[in-house]
């Protein structure tokens, strides 16, 4: 991943969030408070403006960190600190001008750890971790198997989407959906859904 791909990823993510805002809103209204789509859209709109203001020679890590900082400053709720910290930590783990799949997988693993440390969620709690963890694991496997970034990103996106779908039968144990107890069963988690959108955006940006 180089600077152009990082920029392409975040712009594709912004477009995906905008396009899927109604879906995220509907999912969140069912088991949360219905603001996930609007909050992420506000955040990624600010990210687009922040990216436009970056010096052209900003390295990959700097691009991702700036996006993370912007999300923390604009989203609010749990999603702002969680996605923001994920991107900042991922960015901090990528100091070189470009990163291969192994670097990217390791950096995203660090980003996932930051999310889990902040939010306290583990896989199965019906949160964004349920999409994030399998996506990172798929990237790690793809790196080990010597796949291209395009192939690896496609596998990660599929894994994230599967992980998001698999939240449907789960009972939420973290986040606002947990207040519903057993009534959270039967709904797809909005956070896992938006995470899957972000990994699909990475695959698109990588040409998959």
């Amino acid at each position: 991943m180089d600077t152009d791909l990082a920029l392409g990823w975040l712009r594709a993510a912004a477009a995906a969030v905008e396009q899927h805002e109604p879906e995220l809103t509907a999912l969140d209204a069912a088991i949360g408070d219905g603001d996930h789509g609007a909050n992420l859209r506000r955040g990624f709109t600010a990210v687009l403006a922040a990216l436009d203001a970056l010096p052209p020679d900003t390295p990959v890590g700097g691009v991702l960190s700036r996006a993370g900082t912007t999300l923390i400053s604009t989203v609010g709720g749990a999603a702002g600190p969680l996605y923001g910290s994920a991107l900042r930590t991922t960015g901090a783990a990528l100091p070189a001008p470009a990163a291969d799949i192994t670097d990217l997988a390791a950096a995203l693993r660090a980003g996932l750890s930051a999310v889990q440390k902040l939010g306290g969620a583990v896989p199965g709690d019906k949160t964004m971790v349920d999409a994030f963890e399998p996506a990172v694991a798929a990237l790690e496997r793809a790196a080990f198997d010597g796949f291209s970034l395009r192939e690896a990103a496609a596998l990660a996106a599929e894994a994230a989407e599967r992980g998001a779908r698999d939240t449907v039968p789960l009972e939420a144990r973290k986040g606002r959906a947990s207040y519903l107890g057993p009534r959270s069963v039967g709904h797809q988690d909005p956070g896992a859904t938006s995470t899957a959108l972000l990994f699909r955006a990475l695959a698109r940006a990588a040409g998959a």
Partner: protein
Amino acid sequence: MKKLINTPESVLDDALAGIAAAHPELTVDRAARVVLRAGGPRPGKVAVISGGGSGHEPLHVGFVGPGMLDAACPGEVFTSPVPDQLLAAIKAADGGAGVVFVVKNYTGDVLNFQLAAELAAEDGIEVRTVLVNDDVAVRDSTWTAGRRGTGAAVVVEKAAGAVAERGGTAAEVAAAGQLANSASRSFAVALSAATVPAAGRPGFELPEDQVEVGVGIHGEPGRRRAPLRPARELVAEVVEAVLSEHTLSAGHETIVLVNGLGATPLLELYIVFGEVAAKLAERGIRIARSLVGNYVTSLDMAGFSLTLTKADARLLDLWDAPASTPALRRP
């Protein structure tokens, strides 16, 4: 959706403009989205700062003033404020004696306040946090997000604010807030859902003859649905729920908050209060103080929450201490 707004996107900005225009005793920084007591920081006084999603008015902005909060940070509707806002509030309100945050226990609020406290620490400002978690509809365990913060926020802000106003240290202010929180338990019932302006539709649909039991203040559905019954029966269930996780029992005194969720007439809230009083009397619990009205709302949700605070001499003294805020005044 029928609402008195200009656009869904400008709800918070437009409301802040109105608050600024209506309350010259407050300083409203519309760019930073911080509401402060006018006159700048008070040297040597601990700053009590709270915040949370908008849509719960008068909480928290309505409790800014002498005797309660030094600053409040309103987030977007039902969305916690961001760390930048909270840091701006800290810098504007810090009088050099430290800062105490009052944070309702929601994942988003906790994370954003925590990030702000870390940023403040880098600038050499110590921030203590009082977590409000009074809602017994949510099971409190390490495997969940824990009990939500609801009506007790009013009691916590009153108690912490009173100690700060009297010149207490940051540790004393935080301890008073924690005492008020530990002594309080709440439970809510909704008759209709709230409509978030950006969503345009109610958070859930409730048939004419149904209520949501154990509902939160963010338009999220409750733990279960139940048939609508006479106020007496609904209140009996709510009192039972609150007391089942409370140390209140016969011979104790309590501060009672019967709180409207936004769209319930005061007339009905008084009916509820009357039933609460009857139930408490049956159990030998004495009402020491009462508050009836809309204090921690959920936009246009209909329904009420009940908060019972076990009162001792110290808490009653703080509850009675002078306060001058838009929403709560004590001579």
